[in-house]
């Protein structure tokens, strides 16, 4: 490909162009797999220009060729993929990518290539892609959505592609505090930081660019009689050496939250990945608490929408000027300037001085005047005042601009006049400036419309946050410096710095002429679009259509057209969009209002969000003292809260089902042991311990004798069940409460809350001891025989340790608490030993039980065993809306006690309602059919939805004991429907029928646990 390079030669420029590049040092990189080279100091964008590449991507919807428009983070078009394989990162702005040797970048949204893109056919068919296209087109038939529409849309839409493997790089997060955080290292930010620093404050100043100084290098004006950029460079250096200022480049302040919580995203190694070999992370997320925040985020130039204003080579005026000054590149060989203000004249004279011809300055103002205008005239530049661009001509499928059409313009409408063609290959456009108010707005800051700059400026913030400089609408250099020093002094609380402020001078500039839309002449057709939002391909016509279709609120227009909803968050488009809406509705812009600015200011990496919390550090896992044993035994795992419990222990080539069935039959027929250490254990001690239990449980505990236990239910004040377990009396005023594994922390805090906030006179201590004990269930007909083989002084006999009682003693040389409780319905004991003796004791149990065929069983067997007995499980039979009465547990709900939590709520009409769902058992007609968990029961199966839902399955299992399926369900008025059939329509038209039965499927009399 023979692209003409757009690098401006140094000859004759007096060193004023290409300030940041080193022409003696070439850097090789690839673009779409092809090798190119740029200079050290280039960005990807400037290096592409230097290689004659202006088309850097295809647009989102119409796949039109697109080039670089902006500067740094405001660039909406030039989104590229950087890196390869698992290091590929999509949607990076080429204007922010610093060139390094070996950089590999690719264009996005283009197939088969960015030069020849098939999707451009969308552009020709664009009558089919109006605003709200998705809502209008893909409505029916519904079945088409999944199989046809969605795959097509997914392929055609979206920005970039995801990396193809896990990210191999490291990321980290820092927390820090400072007195003053200055956002933005332009002239205002630096001045404020200097003032705050002089006052002794601890300061952080962050700028998203590699260099400090903002656009001071191209902004004109002087400080102490010299170029602004000299002062900014010196000040940045001085601050870095000052000891109380942390100067951070390549760091974007992405969000501002309550109490001056600020998030900063630092690109540590993107500009030079080699430093990661020395241990640097790729990105770093800073979480800063600043006493005060000074926002000096600057302003973003806005384009003027004119016909085909998205053609590669149309660029923002300052972006043209900055690319020339910094990297020595121009977007073409012959430019025109289109402006409504004086600043763009600087671009014209700079281009001319660098040897780039400027064919015309097209200024919508009828009588531009002032020193900048005079300078342009003196340089021999031709000016068309009172004119606008009304068309743009291009060849090669829109990739090369050949000319613009210029016609007279007036704010009162089109004035008749001849249309003129001006040959050029690039256009620098300036429609004024929008203060970057995003951060001010993230945490509720309000805005006011400023007529002078025709944009929104911050109103005083509720937080200790102040916005200064051009971000505050202050563009005059002297006024800006005053504002910045004052803000810095105020933040530091001293007035020491003012004397250091340099004397500022700047050329006076004339007023700008508001211009939101430059009408096209000639026939309006599809190729003749006025783009507002480049990244989401939203045109002025789309906004007007949305208005005509009734989307009057700007928030609705935004969502319907997707204006400002792309990754650039409307940096270059939002205000223009409001201007267009203002024109089409006749309402002034402040009445239209703005949409919400949300964090982040610019997208940042998932890596930075995750930080070091990946892999093993993603989530802390709690392990019982026996964890390693279970692991060695080949257990599969079930997460319960933060715990990992053994789910089952497959042997040989057994699958999980076979293992679970074997474990259940072992418990029913011989003896099994379960690691129940995760059960919550809370010791409750003090003169009011019994009284506390009576208040928090539905049944009575204060009457328990030492050595006895009772099963209790806990309700919240709404009357809903949230925990259960056996509490035993260890001695006078001393109890041990068992809770569910997942509820242990919740219950401790629940008790504490009531003791601290409501029953403050109660004398009782509550202590969580869950992790102090390892606890094992020994269950099955041979449980007693097994335990009696242990060395020790505990009496396991039926008389010595009756059902629901406990004793303490020594077993196998360790202290032990023995509870005779059963969650399986078998003869069962739970033995608690100090956790550090847990594993040894567990192995002793296996050893002692060997002759009885003992085996460990996991949580799934535990659940089937309890379901066979109709025991409820919190979280299965309950979901936060279920009362003990719903579960038929009236026997555990005291009528006698005057007050306990949730008691009064049970009498409320909606809980006493006889139409509530009630717990029942279910036996499917086909005993081999296991109901799906959560299946809905309906009163009758109908063709038309919705069906009348009468309940749902809460527990459902294959019972190897009964050799058939069993289930429990909550069914409306279920207890009155014993023996009736209930239907469950499940997936794909299948219906399962089941008989309503008592939920206790096995050993209804409870004889087996009581031997």
């Amino acid at each position, binding site marked *: 490909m023979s692209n003409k390079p757009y690098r401006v030669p140094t000859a004759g420029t007096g060193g004023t162009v290409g300030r940041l590049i080193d022409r003696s040092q070439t850097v090789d990189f690839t673009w779409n797999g092809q090798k190119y080279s740029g200079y050290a100091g280039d960005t990807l964008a400037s290096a592409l220009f230097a290689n004659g590449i202006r088309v850097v991507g295809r647009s989102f919807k119409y796949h039109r060729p697109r080039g670089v428009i902006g500067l740094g983070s405001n660039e909406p078009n030039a989104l590229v993929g950087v890196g390869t394989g698992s290091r590929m990162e999509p949607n990076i702005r080429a204007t922010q990518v610093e060139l390094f040797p070996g950089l590999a970048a690719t264009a996005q949204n283009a197939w088969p290539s960015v030069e020849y893109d098939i999707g451009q056919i969308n552009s020709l068919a664009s009558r089919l892609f109006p605003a709200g296209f998705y809502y209008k087109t893909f409505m029916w038939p519904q079945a088409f959505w999944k199989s046809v529409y969605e795959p097509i849309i997914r392929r055609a839409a979206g920005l970039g592609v995801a990396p193809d493997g896990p990210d191999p790089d490291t990321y980290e997060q820092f927390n820090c505090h400072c007195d003053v955080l200055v956002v933005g290292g332009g002239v205002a930010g630096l001045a404020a930081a200097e003032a705050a620093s002089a006052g002794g404050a601890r300061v952080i100043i962050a700028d998203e660019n590699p260099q400090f100084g903002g656009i001071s290098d191209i902004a004109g004006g002087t400080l102490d009689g010299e170029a602004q950029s000299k002062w900014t460079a010196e000040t940045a250096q001085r601050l870095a050496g000052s000891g109380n200022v942390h100067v951070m480049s390549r760091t974007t302040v992405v969000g501002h939250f309550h109490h001056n919580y600020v998030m900063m995203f630092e690109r540590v190694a993107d500009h030079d990945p080699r430093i990661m070999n020395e241990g640097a992370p790729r990105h770093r997320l800073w979480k800063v608490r600043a006493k005060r925040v000074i926002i000096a985020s600057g302003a973003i130039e806005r384009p003027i929408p004119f016909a085909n204003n998205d053609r590669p080579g149309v660029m923002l005026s300052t972006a043209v000027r900055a690319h020339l000054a910094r990297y020595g590149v121009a977007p073409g060989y012959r430019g025109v300037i289109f402006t409504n203000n004086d600043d763009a004249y600087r671009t014209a004279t700079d281009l001319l001085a660098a040897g780039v011809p400027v064919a015309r300055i097209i200024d919508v103002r009828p009588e531009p005047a002032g020193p900048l205008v005079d300078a342009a005239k003196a340089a021999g530049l031709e000016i068309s005042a009172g004119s606008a661009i009304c068309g743009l001509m291009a060849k090669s499928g829109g990739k090369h601009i050949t000319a613009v059409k210029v016609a007279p313009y007036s704010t009162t409408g089109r004035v008749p006049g001849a249309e003129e063609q001006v040959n050029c290959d690039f256009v620098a456009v300036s429609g004024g400036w929008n203060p970057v108010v995003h951060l001010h707005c993230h945490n509720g800051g309000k805005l006011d419309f400023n007529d002078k700059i025709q944009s929104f400026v911050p109103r005083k913030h509720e937080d200790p946050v102040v916005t200064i400089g051009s971000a505050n609408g202050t563009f005059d250099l002297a006024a800006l410096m005053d504002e910045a020093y004052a803000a810095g002094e105020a933040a530091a609380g001293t007035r020491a710095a003012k004397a250091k402020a340099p004397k500022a001078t700047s050329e006076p500039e004339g007023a700008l002429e508001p211009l939101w839309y430059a009408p096209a002449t000639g026939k309006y057709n599809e190729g003749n679009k006025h783009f507002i939002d480049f990244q989401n391909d939203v045109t002025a016509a789309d906004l007007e259509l949305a208005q005509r279709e009734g989307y009057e609120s700007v928030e609705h227009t935004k969502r319907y057209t997707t204006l400002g909803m792309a990754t650039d968050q409307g940096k270059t488009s939002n205000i223009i969009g409001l201007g267009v809406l203002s024109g089409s509705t006749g309402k002034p812009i402040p009445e239209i209002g703005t949409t919400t600015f949300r964090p982040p200011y610019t997208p940042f990496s998932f890596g930075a969000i995750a930080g070091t919390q990946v892999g093993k550090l993603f989530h802390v896992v709690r392990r019982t003292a026996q964890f390693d044993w279970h692991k060695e035994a080949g257990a599969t795992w079930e997460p319960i809260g933060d715990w990992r419990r053994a789910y089952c222990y497959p042997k040989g080539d057994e699958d999980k089902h076979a293992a679970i069935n074997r474990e259940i039959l072992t418990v029913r027929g011989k003896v099994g042991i379960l690691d129940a250490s995760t059960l919550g254990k809370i010791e409750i001690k003090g003169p009011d311990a019994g009284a506390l239990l009576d208040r928090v449980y539905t049944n009575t505990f204060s009457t328990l004798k030492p050595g006895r236990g009772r099963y209790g239910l806990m309700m919240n004040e*709404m009357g809903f069940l949230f925990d259960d377990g056996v509490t035993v009396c260890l001695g006078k005023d001393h109890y041990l409460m068992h809770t569910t594994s997942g509820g242990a922390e919740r219950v401790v805090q629940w008790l504490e809350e009531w003791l601290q906030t409501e029953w403050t006179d109660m004398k009782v201590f509550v202590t969580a001891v869950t992790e102090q004990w390892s606890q094992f269930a020994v269950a099955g007909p041979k449980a007693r025989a097994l335990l009696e083989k242990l060395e020790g002084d505990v009496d396991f006999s039926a008389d010595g340790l009756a059902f629901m009682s406990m004793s303490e003693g020594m077993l196998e040389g360790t202290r032990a608490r023995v509870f005779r409780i059963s969650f399986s319905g078998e003869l069962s004991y739970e033995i608690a030993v100090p956790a550090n003796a847990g594993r040894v004791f567990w192995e002793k149990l296996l050893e002692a039980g060997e002759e009885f065929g003992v085996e460990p069983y996991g949580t799934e067997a535990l659940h089937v065993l309890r379901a066979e007995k109709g025991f409820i499980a919190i979280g299965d039979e309950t979901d936060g809306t279920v009362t003990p009465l719903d579960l038929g547990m009236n026997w555990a709900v005291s009528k006698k006690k005057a007050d306990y939590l949730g008691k009064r709520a049970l009498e*409320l009409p909606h809980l006493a309602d006889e139409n509530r769902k009630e717990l029942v058992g279910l036996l499917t007609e086909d005993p081999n059919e296991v109901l799906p968990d959560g299946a809905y029961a309906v009163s009758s199966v109908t063709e038309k939805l919705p069906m009348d839902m009468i309940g749902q399955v809460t527990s459902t299992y294959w019972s190897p004991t009964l050799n058939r399926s069993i289930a429990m369900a909550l069914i409306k008025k279920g207890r009155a429907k014993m023996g009736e059939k209930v239907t469950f329509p499940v997936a794909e038209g299948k219906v399962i029928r089941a008989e309503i039965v008592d939920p206790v499927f096995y050993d209804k009399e409870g004889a087996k646990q009581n031997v």
Partner: protein
Amino acid sequence: MLVITCPVCGVEGEEADFHCGGEAHITRPATENPEGISDEAQRDYIYMRKNPKGVHFERWRCDRGCGKWFHACRDTVSMEILGYYGITQKPPATLLKKADPLWQAHFEAQLKKAKS
């Protein structure tokens, strides 16, 4: 994310180090007299909450610190925390004065009830 200082142990922490227990000064009818609570009174106790735009009183717990509950006075608009006081205490008069009228009515009604 708020910055909160526990008035019990004195530790300053992030909002995530604390737990918000919602509206403060809710009277539990059953503690006073378990009999004769109307359905409406019980419903209001369980479900009805103030939602003032402005100064509000809340319960917080020092979750990752001392574990104690305390009261905080927070402006729901500016998010400023205006003060703290003990979990068994009523808001200081200086804070109550700034609070939403909903709150002043709340304490006046309590006072009236106590007198009768």
